[in-house]
């Protein structure tokens, strides 16, 4: 972080920078940053400010500037659909992140045991990550189809007591989405963790073997703590997927049965474009915005804005 200034200083000191050329240099840097600046200003800053402002107005189908205070927020938190969305995103988030981390970690550990066909296995575990959530959702919707999918297979071999019709059960449909999500994303965790495991010092393994420490204890007490940054990164990535979850729900259940698998992302889209209540929708997105800012700002600061030597 500190070196660039030093470098600029060195150049100036080397005589390349008279005041005129310095100004010119800065000018061209501003020109280079101009597109990004415009994008950040219009698409990120103005939109967020506008979004927050509208959430305090009485806008319905069209945005209006009638200030109504926190009315929309009061309405939002008495709307069953929103409360269910919040509850769902929390349940989905916890199960999805935990599921991906556990499965991803186990797969990475398994692949790290000098197995044969490692490349083939890795390819198989990761390919779903190349697929979109829409495709993922549609595939799992088809497998979980109560009359033609897994249920039919179970019935036809006589296991009629097995129920695979979760997708039409309002209390179970969310777990189909969790399953589809884990199928799509755990390969990512596997890839990240495998890279992390390969970075663990081989001497450490030698030492623990000599001391006769069982492998599982080494993983639990030494390797997992070493992998902490990797685990945090994977969790952050998965958490972004959780707050943005929309397409997966749309393609798997469409939010149903009823409103049992609604999520905030879908709630907002529906109220913006389908149900014509912009103020309520912007209120909901403001809630999401504030939640995310509170959650990620400390992590971002820690990760990117502490003074660190260049190239680390």
């Amino acid at each position, binding site marked *: 972080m500190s070196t660039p200034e030093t470098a600029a200083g060195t150049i100036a000191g080397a005589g390349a920078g008279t005041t005129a050329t310095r100004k010119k240099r800065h000018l061209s840097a501003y020109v280079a940053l101009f597109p990004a600046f415009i994008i950040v200003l219009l698409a990120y800053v103005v939109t967020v400010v506008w979004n927050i402002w509208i959430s305090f107005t009485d806008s319905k189908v069209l945005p209006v500037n009638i200030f109504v205070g926190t009315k929309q927020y009061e309405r939002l938190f008495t709307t069953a659909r929103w409360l269910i969305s919040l509850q769902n995103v929390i349940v989905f988030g916890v199960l999805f992140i935990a599921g991906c981390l556990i499965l991803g970690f186990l797969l990475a550990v398994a692949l790290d045991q000098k197995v044969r066909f490692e490349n083939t296995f890795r390819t198989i*575990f990761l390919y779903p990550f190349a697929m979109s959530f829409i495709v993922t959702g549609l595939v799992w919707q088809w497998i979980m189809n109560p009359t033609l*999918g897994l249920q039919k297979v179970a019935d*036809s071999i006589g296991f009629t007591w097995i129920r695979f019709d979760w997708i039409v059960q309002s209390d179970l449909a969310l777990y189909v989405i969790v399953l589809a999500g884990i199928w799509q994303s755990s390969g990512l965790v596997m890839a990240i963790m495998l890279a992390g495991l390969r970075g663990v010092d081989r001497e450490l393994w030698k030492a623990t073997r000599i001391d006769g420490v069982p492998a599982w204890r080494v993983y639990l007490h030494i390797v997992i703590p070493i992998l902490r940054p990797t685990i945090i990164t994977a969790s952050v990535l998965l958490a972004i997927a959780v707050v943005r979850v929309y397409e997966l729900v749309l393609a798997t259940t469409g939010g149903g049965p009823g409103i049992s698998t609604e999520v905030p992302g879908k709630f907002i889209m529906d109220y913006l474009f389908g149900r014509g209540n912009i103020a309520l929708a912007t209120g909901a997105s403001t809630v999401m915005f504030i939640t*995310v800012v509170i959650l990620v700002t400390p992590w971002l600061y820690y990760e990117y804005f502490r003074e660190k030597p260049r190239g680390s």
Partner: protein
Amino acid sequence: MTMPSSVAVAAGGPTGRKPQHLSPARIGLYTFLVIAALFFLLPLYVMIVTSLKSMPEIRQGNIFAFPRVWTGEAWVQAWSTACTGLECGGISVGFWNSVKILIPSMIMSIFISSLTGYALSFWRVKGANVLFAVLLLGAFIPYQVFIYPLVLIYRGVGIYSTLPCIIITHTVFGLPVLTLLFRNYYSSLPMELFKAARVDGAGLWQIFFRLMIPMSIPILVVAAILQVTGIWNDFLFGVVFAGRENFPMTVQLNNIVNSTQGEKLYNVNMAATILTALVPLIVYFGSGRWFVRGITAGAVKG
């Protein structure tokens, strides 16, 4: 890691276990791997066999059974005649729309992001840190926050629901991650190189085009892979910003599958699903380790 090298490492390896005979632990390990592989492969298998069956067979048979009569008819239908609501031009319309969206979006987002990343890491000017902070934060904020105001901005400018509109949108939302990617990459390059070019009198643009771009081929490949898969798989922006004539493949696919008219043609739906997944899958299988590098570098610190 390729097989020969990992075997070589295993020979003198710290875990010391040479798998010469199968111990119960090894059998357990492989059982786990095989079961996991089946779990990951199952949907792909079901998709493929379903797409090759006829509808009567789908209704009678089970989803895992091989087709009794193989037919490619569903594929032809999915590609050229399947109905998305009122129009019946198949998924091919969406395919070409996705291509039209993908290529310019990719070029524009990579160009602006690499330029920004370069300027941020070598030409530190006032306000650059603020710009970078907002960009970083932007990478984490749910898209739903930006969507409606952007619709209004695009309407104001008069480009809403057009090809430029969706291209700009992909550039806008590709910017945070790609800029981070390029910034981290350029930060790892030796400062001396840059200084030497400065002393030789090269300006910002000269250094960018003649020094940085040629040196960033590996990271450009990573960025391209990220963008191809990301833009191709996008649904949300496509449905909101592209406009009916430019709906990308994912949106068309969803419309075909969730079209309420008539009987659900599962074989056609599955063929259309595979067709939609084909481009990112080709990128995935074709780029091998680069894909892994892409996804990890894309969001993880480089």
